[in-house]
């Protein structure tokens, strides 16, 4: 994880006086949680041109509702239109973008220049942000896109803080950087493993994450083939036997080769990111759960606000990091911000897929006088279980679940029905939209 030294890189934000916290929203409900828990902007996918064909993407009607909801919080909604288009995709672009604009979408996140160009020429109210899928790494390329009319570029994940600061020095433009979540280990857009292994087009949203599969590494050892060192021949005497064409570069006890990366987490480096002048802090994960989005947004919101309120007195609270761990399903690292990832930044060991906590219930109502809350069930819970309440304001406590009743006042041995409304006593005040989580 990043070190806590004085920020080295000084940069200036372009239009915003505070960094924007930009969160993923895989559907309308997730959008509401992301915004309520503190996102300044959310990005979503529409029915077309997006890279998450597996997410339950927004209709224009849902977009309008999302925009309406976000507006109450002063938050914006962006749409990822980040595919690399094929011929058959070209015809509908203009109409689609007009519909986005009419739905109140503030900006689109675009990789393919044909979509950039169409938006700039034909839908002038719709802001265009260059996607990380373009793998933009240098200030001249950033400057090119600024001159084309883009107010923001999402840099390639391979840029370091030093490089970002340099880009900031050369070009007056908003820079958006991924700060948390899963990462392509390749240059984004420069991977077609999925196409080769499963005929699924990665650059149109079909990625099957072949980078996280397991591989064995070999070396060609055919006589007419390539160079093999003497040491290797000594270590693997079978190479000298006739008929052997490949030398394994792994022992039976080794973990297999993989390209799979640990997930990004920059929570410990918030001062560095803010001082470098990064305009928008982006969280990955349109496919992630409500619990994930709310937890991660909440932690970053608190860190950013604390630093902005008092940069000198800022201290990272251990509980913010602990919170992130409750939603994390992979080990974390700092990507390319400080140095190029090495062997400690990839996941060779078998993975534990599941995050350690589940979303158990959503607080709908709270009665201060009786200390009773009305909770909507999101996963089973029952009396005697340890749970935690948390929310965007001050709610943050653990308690043991006491007696449960349904709305008619009948006692429950377990809250077993999805979306069931359950009454329970809470140890501290809670508020509408607070969440109750439990350990899995």
């Amino acid at each position, binding site marked *: 994880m990043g070190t806590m030294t004085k920020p080295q890189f000084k940069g200036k934000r372009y239009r915003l006086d505070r960094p924007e916290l930009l969160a993923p929203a895989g559907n309308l409900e997730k959008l509401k949680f992301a915004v309520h828990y503190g996102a300044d902007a959310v990005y979503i996918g529409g029915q077309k041109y997006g890279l998450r064909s597996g997410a339950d993407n927004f209709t224009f009607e849902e977009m309008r509702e999302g925009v309406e909801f976000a507006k109450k919080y002063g938050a914006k909604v962006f749409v990822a239109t980040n595919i*690399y*288009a*094929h*011929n058959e*995709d*070209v015809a509908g672009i203009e109409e689609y973008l007009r519909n986005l604009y009419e739905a109140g979408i503030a900006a689109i996140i675009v*990789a*393919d*220049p*044909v979509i950039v*160009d169409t938006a700039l020429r034909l839908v002038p109210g719709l802001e265009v942000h260059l996607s990380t*899928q373009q793998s933009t*790494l*240098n*200030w*001249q*390329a950033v400057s*090119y*896109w600024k001159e084309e009319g883009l107010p923001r570029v999402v840099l390639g994940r*391979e840029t370091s803080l030093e*490089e970002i600061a*340099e880009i900031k020095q050369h070009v007056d433009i908003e820079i958006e950087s991924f700060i948390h979540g899963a990462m392509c*280990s*390749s*240059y984004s*857009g*420069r*991977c*077609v493993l999925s*196409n080769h292994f499963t*005929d*699924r*087009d990665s*650059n*149109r949203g079909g990625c099957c994450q072949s*980078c996280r599969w397991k*591989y*064995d*590494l*070999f*070396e*060609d*050892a055919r006589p007419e*083939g390539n*160079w093999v*060192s003497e*040491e*290797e021949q000594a270590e693997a005497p079978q190479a000298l036997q006739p008929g052997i*064409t490949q030398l394994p*570069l*792994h*022992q039976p006890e*080794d*973990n297999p*080769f993989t*390209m799979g*990366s640990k997930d990004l987490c920059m929570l410990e480096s918030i001062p560095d990111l803010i001082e470098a002048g990064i305009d928008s802090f982006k969280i990955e994960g349109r496919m992630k759960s409500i619990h994930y989005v709310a937890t991660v947004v909440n932690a970053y919101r608190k860190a950013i606000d604390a630093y902005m309120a008092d940069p000198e007195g800022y201290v990272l609270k251990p509980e913010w990091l602990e919170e992130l761990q409750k939603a994390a399903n992979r080990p974390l690292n700092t990507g*390319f911000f400080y140095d190029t990832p090495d*062997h400690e*930044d990839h996941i060779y060991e078998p993975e534990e897929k599941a995050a350690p906590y589940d979303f158990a219930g959503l607080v709908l109502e709270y009665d201060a006088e009786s200390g009773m809350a009305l909770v909507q069930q999101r996963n089973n819970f029952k009396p005697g279980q340890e749970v935690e309440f948390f929310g965007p304001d001050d709610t943050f406590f653990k308690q043991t679940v006491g007696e449960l009743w349904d709305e008619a006042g009948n006692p429950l041995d377990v809250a077993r029905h999805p979306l069931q409304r359950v009454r329970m006593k809470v140890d501290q005040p809670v508020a509408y939209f607070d969440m109750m989580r439990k350990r899995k």
Partner: protein
Amino acid sequence: MNNTPELLATAASLEEAAALLDAGASALLVGDDRFGMRLAGHFTLEDTAAVVKLAHTRGGKVYVSINGLIPNTMLEELPAYVKAIGELGVDGVEFGDPAVLAAVKAEAPGMKLHWNAEMTSTNYATANYWGRKGASRVVLARELNMDEMTEMVPHLEVEAQVQVHGMTNIYHSKRKLVASYMSHQGRPSDGGSLGKERGLFLIEAERPNEKFPIYEDENGTHIMSSDDICILEDLHFLLKAGVHSLKIEGLLKPVAYNVAVVKAYRHAMDVYAADPAEYAFEESWLDEVRALQDPERELSFGFFYKEQVY
């Protein structure tokens, strides 16, 4: 009427360049490892001068690949390099990054610009966009199918180049993935190079017969296809569609193999040009290529006849 298209081949050395021209290549693609990615070989400015002279005396063209993913630090060296190759008479530059576009316009506006964003050059409208910015050619993604390519041509305001033979890159990372893996294994250096001369490859558990070459260089880690595209049998579809340049990728192949490939395509193109109506592919045209083909790598149609989903 049918203009015979260009037959473009990558060259790893001056010797290979000469052999490929002899075999019938009408254009060569070379480059400098600092600026070009996955080059067959490294050409210094001196080599580049020599290859330009060699090709031009035989009526051939030389293009230089500057298709790297360019960090800030490279911007300092880029203009001088572009200027230098422009002065050597290089005919064109392959680019993906807008920084290269700017450098060529400023330093060597006489050179043609060929837009090559590898797997992301996937539609005619984006190609035409780069055309309006100064490009005269698009290098089509190898993941497109035959229909997508041939249907694209009439919509293009720039020339189209299609890779007809050889391996393709399927994954590129800035990370040093082989070195990282060896460190993880506790054998941080096994004494060998991790570069393309080493012959490293990956095998995925469910595909034991497919070997995916992998190597590291200053640009990171590259993983290559387990098969070699070979479109010769159906080359006439591309010729008929009016594709302007057919590319043979010679990366990681011996010179003799690349020469055999160029000869085979040259022959097919000449037969087609002589009488398109009577043209018919003959299996024997591939005999020499098949004889030299790595038995552990399949000759395939690549994505030409695949339907992909997403």
